[in-house]
């Protein structure tokens, strides 16, 4: 439901200029607009999902300057001057990211609802720590919930991608 906010003269808007999946975006947002709504409704990128809406499940995970945040509980204007990565921006020139490839090969998703957030969180993990122990992986991924897989395949996918990314 993309629509522009009402332009009454007393409505405060904030110019929002940021990098989205490597490309410059410029728009105006009202202070109360949430990043998740801007990304989904105004920019049409629906990979990030509104699920729990209280920052607990991770389905709305986006990377801002490489760090995972809950888009459902982030005000859109907060990404001004920063770089945002959504799941749609992970593949480069049609080539899947090793994490995406690994999730496919190792069965890391079933319904797919948690998957965009799961993969982005995993990317943040591996960018910070290319060779995580199982404990380190679990600790980092603790905030991303999956109702389908039981997590075993997710862990395998991430570990496999990590290995691939290390060139091992």
């Amino acid at each position, binding site marked *: 439901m993309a629509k522009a906010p009402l332009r009454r003269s007393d409505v405060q808007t904030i110019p929002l200029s940021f990098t989205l999946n490597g490309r410059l975006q410029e728009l105006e947002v009202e202070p109360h*607009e949430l990043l998740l709504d801007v990304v989904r409704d105004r920019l049409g990128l629906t990979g990030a999902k509104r699920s729990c*809406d209280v*920052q607990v499940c*991770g389905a709305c995970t986006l990377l801002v300057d490489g760090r*995972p945040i809950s888009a459902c*509980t*982030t005000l859109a204007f907060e990404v001004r001057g920063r770089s945002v990565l959504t799941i749609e921006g992970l593949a480069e020139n049609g080539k899947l990211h090793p994490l995406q490839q690994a999730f496919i090969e190792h069965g890391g998703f079933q319904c797919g609802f948690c998957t965009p957030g799961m993969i982005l969180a995993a990317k*943040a993990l591996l960018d910070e720590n290319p060779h995580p122990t199982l404990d380190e992986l679990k600790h*980092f991924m603790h905030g991303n919930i999956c109702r389908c897989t039981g997590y075993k395949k997710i862990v395998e996918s991430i570990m496999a991608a990590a290995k691939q990314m290390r060139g091992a």
Partner: protein
Amino acid sequence: MLKRFRLEEPGSVREASELLAQFGDAAKLYAGGTELLLAMKEGLVHYERLVNVKTVPGLKEIKAENGIVRIGALATHHEIETSPLVRERLPAFAKLERNVANVRVREAGTIGGNLCFAEPHADPGTLLLVLEAQLVAAKAAGTRRIPAEAFFVDAYETSLEPDEVLTEIHIPVPTERSGVSYMKFGYLERPSVGVAVKLSLDGGAVQNVGIAVGCAGPAPRRVKEAEELLRGKTPDEALQLLPDAGRTAAKAAQAISDLHGSQEYKEHIVGVLLRRCFQDALNQCR
């Protein structure tokens, strides 16, 4: 969707404080938003204006001076968790911060916001009590230091005045031969019980004992009566007295039966965590 509000972006603590004074109940300080935005999304609170304190410079620094670690109120849990200084001088606090909520909350949430929102099921306050931290609050008229013990008044209530801004947290570095331990328990999204212990071994006796309980009741509490029981005892004597100390600490927690567990269950867990924290702190001393 949130209801519409105006964003104020002050450039100084004074300006932030003046905005709060000017708009009173209609304005609220906004930092990481990890608690505030949730309450606003639920429609439990509404503010006409949010004062974005993140635009005030100088509130994020972590440094050490004269045996005190000074942490800016806007330091995020992630920044504290990964700070080499905090890891070295206050490893128990770095460990606590590493286990706050989840990685996304740790990225956006600030220590100041956590303390000021005073959500009952929170971690940092409990440990800061035994570490005898001082909280620096500033407003246009001046600054004051609030001891952690005087900061937490009740659920969602601190002793901050409406126009005061928390700027820094000062934590004295524990002396040599000290042990500091924080443990929590819970199976819901937020912790149900948290216990912190600090102690040092001096001439074979347990000294400088600090015991605090949090999460189970409306606000974290230091439990001096439990500390008295253990002070001056040898480690073995103290271990014998732990069940008593545990019962005392449990009562002080002001636990009530709710979705997190029955009062009795929480009180029991306080005793268990106290025993484990005490043992852990003792081991650190040796």
